[in-house]
């Protein structure tokens, strides 16, 4: 696939070692456009928008921001904790701004499913509908996500 210089730059920034240790694509050999399209189709099937998912993730992260020393129960069924480490990360899409290194871990106590996301994940979903490639350390499967956070 012929890429524009910007697309080439974005793909390069998603590689391991540029912004994060393992990059954003994992073992996924698809182009990031294809990853986005496939994940968008999942959201369409559920009738949920990327903004709604990002808002929900942000709600959990913000709710646990000051609970820095352990998990808290939210809405009776979510056990959530957010850990903040030193530094900030830029967006691989060259979107302006920096995103704090936060890792939020949520366990849905009804289903037993545990999900993990970063501050950058929230931005990538909201602004770019990008859930990362399969096998990526912080890949969020939209199907699993939608079933467990709403």
């Amino acid at each position, binding site marked *: 696939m012929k890429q524009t210089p910007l697309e080439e730059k974005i793909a390069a920034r998603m590689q391991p070692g540029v912004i994060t240790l393992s990059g954003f694509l994992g073992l996924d050999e698809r182009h990031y456009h294809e990853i986005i399209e496939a994940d968008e189709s999942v959201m369409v099937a559920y009738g949920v928008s990327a903004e709604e998912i990002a808002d929900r993730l942000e709600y959990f992260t913000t709710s646990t921001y000051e609970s820095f020393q*352990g998990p808290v129960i939210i809405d009776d069924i979510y056990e959530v904790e957010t850990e*903040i480490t030193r530094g900030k990360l*830029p967006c691989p899409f060259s979107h302006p701004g920096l995103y704090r290194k936060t890792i939020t871990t949520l366990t849905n106590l009804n289903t037993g499913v545990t999900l993990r996301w970063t501050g950058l994940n929230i931005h990538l979903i909201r602004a770019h509908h990008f859930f990362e490639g399969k096998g990526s350390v912080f890949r969020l499967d939209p199907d699993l996500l939608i079933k467990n956070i709403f």
Partner: protein
Amino acid sequence: MLLQIISDIGASAAISIFLALILVFAQKYLNTYGDCVVDINNKKQITVKGGNSLLNTLNDQQIYLASACGGRGSCGACKCKVAEGGGPLLPTEKPLLSPKEQQDNIRLACQVKVKSDIKIHIPESIFNIRKFVSVVESITDLTYDIKAVVFRLKEPAKIDFKAGQYVQLETKPYGKIKQTTVRAYSISSKPEDDTLVELIIRLVPEGICTTWVHNFLQVGEEVNLTGPFGDFYIRDTQADMIFIAGGSGKAPIKSMLQHLQVVGTNRKMTYFFGARTEKDLYLTELFKGFEHVFPDFQYIPVLSKCDDAGLYCARSGYIMPYIKEVLRDPQNTEAYMCGSPGMLEACRKELRNLGVPDNKIYFDSFG
């Protein structure tokens, strides 16, 4: 007809290539900016070859602004005031500058190109910043995910810093990582040990630099450090002091207390260290030992998850409820905090509520 189309496409491609070559040639040989004068603080003028970024231009003169992203315009650490020259503010800079900073002509040095004479203002302390070649002398496990690394300075052989300041550590390419990365870490050794720098580094999931330190760095290896940076240091007063830290935030507090041990102090000091469990505690003997060194010092670990049988379960949960226990005169108290932004914000709120003036709350936030 087909031949005509192919020939037209060929001609267009040839013209495009020709124009591109002219541009490359012009950029390389004609687009020189000659000598430019960089005026620093109206005190020092340096003549440089134009065309490079202000950050690199200053680096070449051994004037080091902070930069955590290696000049990629993403960290916003290399801010400085450009009083004259420097061209218009770029879209890459705007997201990292507040409206006030933009109004005050603050720029990102990595994005400003030196194309003509330029006048800048930088803090005087930056002239003390040096790039050091060091050798790793020791690597010690402090917990399951925190290591202390001692770097013996080689060139220059000594560093002049204030307890609480930080250095930037430059990684080398490793594994799949093809480029160097720069990250900031507080110095945990005392300023009096001026031939070494000790850093306390916690392994961050997916962290390029911390993974290098934890899994690849070897004793004897040469490593570049730049510093010292930062304005988190002890104020020379007689006020009571409350230290609050969590995780690797212990590093600058260790440096401060070891420095105070050398110079001596009678100030009332309390140190709250927030950790999740006992296995997250480290250097406990050292800090408890300070209770016998200083006339009025208390080290208080506060664990969020406490086993009833644990040694340090006297106080558990959050740090905030325990602060009032040690406050003697809030107006005459200084707080020094280092850790996660959530913890700092919660403690700052509590200190304010208890009457500690905001301008006496100093912090080094991870965020």
